[in-house]
């Protein structure tokens, strides 16, 4: 995907309601949207774009479970196998005393794991320079982008008329 420059035709909208209507219209017209960029999460957009629910929370659960096992089994190993010590006359394997650390490590693993996964799958990291279509997308513009690499003249005209019909305030092209 990265090896080829993309020719992008994009339209900017001023309001999220206009954007939602436009995406609906694009679906009806069978136009293939490359991506939608917004300054904040717009609810109702995901089903229109056919985005599946994120599975990040499942990953989080798995990381958490790994954390639980790591902490609990490690403390068990230390206090029953590696170096058993009696503390206050309690049994070596004093499970209630393991609860706080097990809990903390679970939360730690789940959170760190999820955050690392999030940035990795989104391709975000310090120093990454992702091409932006317009500087105002992080401010107050809502953007629908189409890939027009292999699109013919008539396809581009069709997209342009789609933008003007749905009330885009600006339409531009950019190679990214």
């Amino acid at each position, binding site marked *: 995907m990265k090896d080829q420059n993309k020719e992008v035709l994009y339209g900017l909208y001023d309001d999220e*309601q206009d954007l939602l209507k436009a995406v609906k219209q694009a679906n009806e017209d069978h136009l293939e949207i490359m991506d*939608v*960029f917004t*300054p*904040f*999460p*717009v*609810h109702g*957009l*995901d089903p229109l*774009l056919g*985005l599946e*629910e*994120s599975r*990040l*929370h499942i990953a*989080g659960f798995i990381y*958490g479970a790994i954390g639980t096992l790591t902490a609990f089994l490690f*403390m068990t190993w*230390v206090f029953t196998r*590696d*170096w058993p*010590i009696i*503390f*206050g006359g*309690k049994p070596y394997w*004093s499970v209630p*005393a*393991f609860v*706080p*650390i097990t*809990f*903390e*490590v679970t*939360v*730690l693993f*789940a*959170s*760190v794991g*999820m*955050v690392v996964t*999030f*940035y990795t*799958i*989104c*391709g*975000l*990291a*310090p*120093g*990454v*320079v*992702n091409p*932006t279509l317009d*500087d*105002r*997308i*992080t*401010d*107050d513009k809502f953007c629908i982008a189409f890939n027009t690499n292999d699109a013919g003249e008539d396809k581009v005209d069709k997209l342009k008329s789609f933008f003007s019909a749905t009330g885009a305030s600006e339409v531009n092209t950019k190679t990214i």
Partner: protein
Amino acid sequence: MSAVVSPIRVPLIEGGKSYHQITEDICSPTEKTPSTAWIIAFIIAVAGLSFYVFCVAWTIWIGIGSWDLNRTVGWGWDITNFVWWVGIGHAGTLISAILLLFRQKWRTGVNRAAEAMTIFAVICAGQFPLIHMGRLWLGFFIFPYPNTRGPLWVNFNSPLLWDVFAISTYFTVSLLFWYTGLVPDFATVRDRAKGLRKKIYNVLSFGWTGSAKHWQRWESLSLVLAGLATPLVLSVHTIVSFDFATSVIPGWHTTIFPPYFVAGAIFSGFAMVQTLMVITRKVLNLQEYITIGHIESMNKVILLTGSIVGVAYLTELFIAWYSGYVYEQFAFYNRVMGPYWWSYLGMMTCNVLSPQLFWSKKIRQSLFWTFFMSIFVNIGMWFERFVIIATTLARDYLPSSWSYYNPTWVEIGLFVGTLGLFFTLFLIFSRVAPVVAIAEIKHILKSAGDQYTGPNAQKHADKAEKAH
């Protein structure tokens, strides 16, 4: 987040903002040269921080003997400060996590600054156990790493070690939560900037684009992190209270400690948020985002948690009497009437009596009272920890070893110095990052702002017009 919001509610964002105006209002403080007030505040804060560094160096050079702790009172200002700072560090996560789960939209105005405050407060808190070790360079002994002494592991049954895990997990998770929220806002700042500034903010924003899929994952991540941070924030002060509650010292060995500590932590945390917000909203001109409504909501939380703390104090006294256990009875008699009676009085006045003023709506909505009370509450909560720690230790089982403890200038310097550290960090934060979560504010503008467009919007507008 599509909860039904009553159109009759007071809007959370005032001033008829457009999306662009929001960006402008919140980003501009990071783009202007600092004001004189900021520079003066920064110089004072850095001076405090420098004195802190000096006192730490003094402590390490001389040893913790320079604190005048003694055989009887082994924990003085250091652990008092530690618990005080950790407590303050609870409000941020409470606002950003618990209020997110409860769908309290007013949190968006204050969550960014409150989370920043949390992180800085935890940094300050973490200093004290480390310095208290005396041999700071052996601080890594607290972590269970394979060592050449056996390996001899740390004691996983010790509440002090639970504390290590709790505080470091809490710090890490708060930092990740806060930073992930900041990434889209750093992108907003980046896209307004030019030259070197743009490059710096591009690094900070991780190359954020605002793609729909990214937003979806971002929201999913925020929600799960909030779900994880909620029990975490409750666990942290619970575990701090275990430091005391699992010991066999009368006055400490009580089951009421965990909920009582957590309520106190939220109480003092909100007070610190108020102290900072009342000033920040004015200096950075954010009155339309952090409205009187926000201030009032937080004052209600202060009233509630202050009352919980009050009930806990009275319960302790009652149970001490009712238990018929002389040592417990003496411990509490000593707290109220003993040589440290003044700190008990300060605690009771600041924490239990003074928040009751917030039953009055007028006082809840007054900025002057809010600021004044927030300082009062923080003093009271400091006294609470001092009462619990020093007062209890000074009169132990053996009357022959009773003593009295006064702090030295080094200990006072360390406390004042961490205030310097805290305000230095907060002042830097207010200059480089948007202090209000821009994307989240825009997100609620039309569902909870003054441009409400949801169900019954027209009806509401008509009603408002008729009223005028």
